[in-house]
């Protein structure tokens, strides 16, 4: 391999190492939907014709390996967590998959999920600051 190709490879690997990947989501309900509707990262369940407002927080694994989050215990043992960073709210991109639910923006990271018709749907969450798409299952039940 020529030196120039090595440089290109090194740059590519370095870039890949700094690319963050979405790992998890938090879905925080901001309103209490009627009929016992619920909202969490595990799924959203609301009645047709009703709505719930949620704040969505997306997290990435720390690409730096967590060195800055290591804690030295005693002289020899070092505990390193696997820290997560939340992506900027302004970088969030949230869409809805399926006709059962509709999505309305409130703020960068706050959305209203509306039950349009009984059936399943998904929220697809991505970020301009990270790779990957995470999904939240949405179930709309009839009233």
């Amino acid at each position, binding site marked *: 391999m020529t030196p120039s190709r090595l440089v290109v490879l090194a740059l590519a690997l370095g870039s890949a190492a700094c690319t963050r990947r979405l790992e998890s989501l938090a879905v925080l309900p901001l309103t209490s*939907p009627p009929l016992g509707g619920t909202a969490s990262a595990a799924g959203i369940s609301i009645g047709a014709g009703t709505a719930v407002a949620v704040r969505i927080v997306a997290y990435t694994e720390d690409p730096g390996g967590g060195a800055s989050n290591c804690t030295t215990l005693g002289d020899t043992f070092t505990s390193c967590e696997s820290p997560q960073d939340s992506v900027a709210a302004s970088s969030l991109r949230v869409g809805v998959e399926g006709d059962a639910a509709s999505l309305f923006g409130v703020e960068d990271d706050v959305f209203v999920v509306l039950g349009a018709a009984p059936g399943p749907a998904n929220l697809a969450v991505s970020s301009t600051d990270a790779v990957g798409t995470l999904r939240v299952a949405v179930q709309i039940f009839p*009233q």
Partner: protein
Amino acid sequence: MRTPQRLVSSAVLGLLLAGCGAAPGEGELGNDRFLYACVERSDAACDDASSPTASLELLPVLAKGAVFRLLTENPANVPYSPTPRLTVIDGEAVTFRAEVAGYSAIFARDANGNVRDLVHAMVVEPAAVTLLTRQGGSAWLESGATLSVPVGSTVALRSAPADALGHVLAGALDVVWSSTPEDLLATVAKVDGNVLLIAPEAPAEGELKVTVAGSLLAKVKFVAAVGGGK
């Protein structure tokens, strides 16, 4: 056990006190307030004698088929129904008709179409018509009861749609007053929406009837006599 009249009284009291909550009219996100307003005088929620088109700070339970208006405290926002469960019948005045029983989300949207707040309206199928007389104090009348009005005095007979438990429902519905004999109504009363202002000037007798939403009927036997009823 509570009587139907007491249930209805509680419901009316609830409507009248609808502005006394801790956070009156506040949307579920707390970014705006929703105010209910009556479109017509036939709306049982707003026909208080002193303020026939008053607005309420809490969204009352609505009758299916009823027409009502919503306002937002922030004039930059506009109430919006995201589903056909509530249809818009007047976009400028933001007037809705409740088409489907159950809960319906209503948004307050800004000029960019962003949702600033939301609220849920509860819509119930009306099952009966309640009657209330008002002459100084108020009294509930069972359908079929006798209403005696002394000649020379005035009594207001008010109708309101109610659910199967007797809870009064809000929203304007078609209200048609009639009588037997047919000319009795015009002789002794004046129609004002869901309120019949009865002021007999001579002895009369017959039946006064009200039909709400085309099919819900209530009627009273009517007697006007000099010096009091029978």
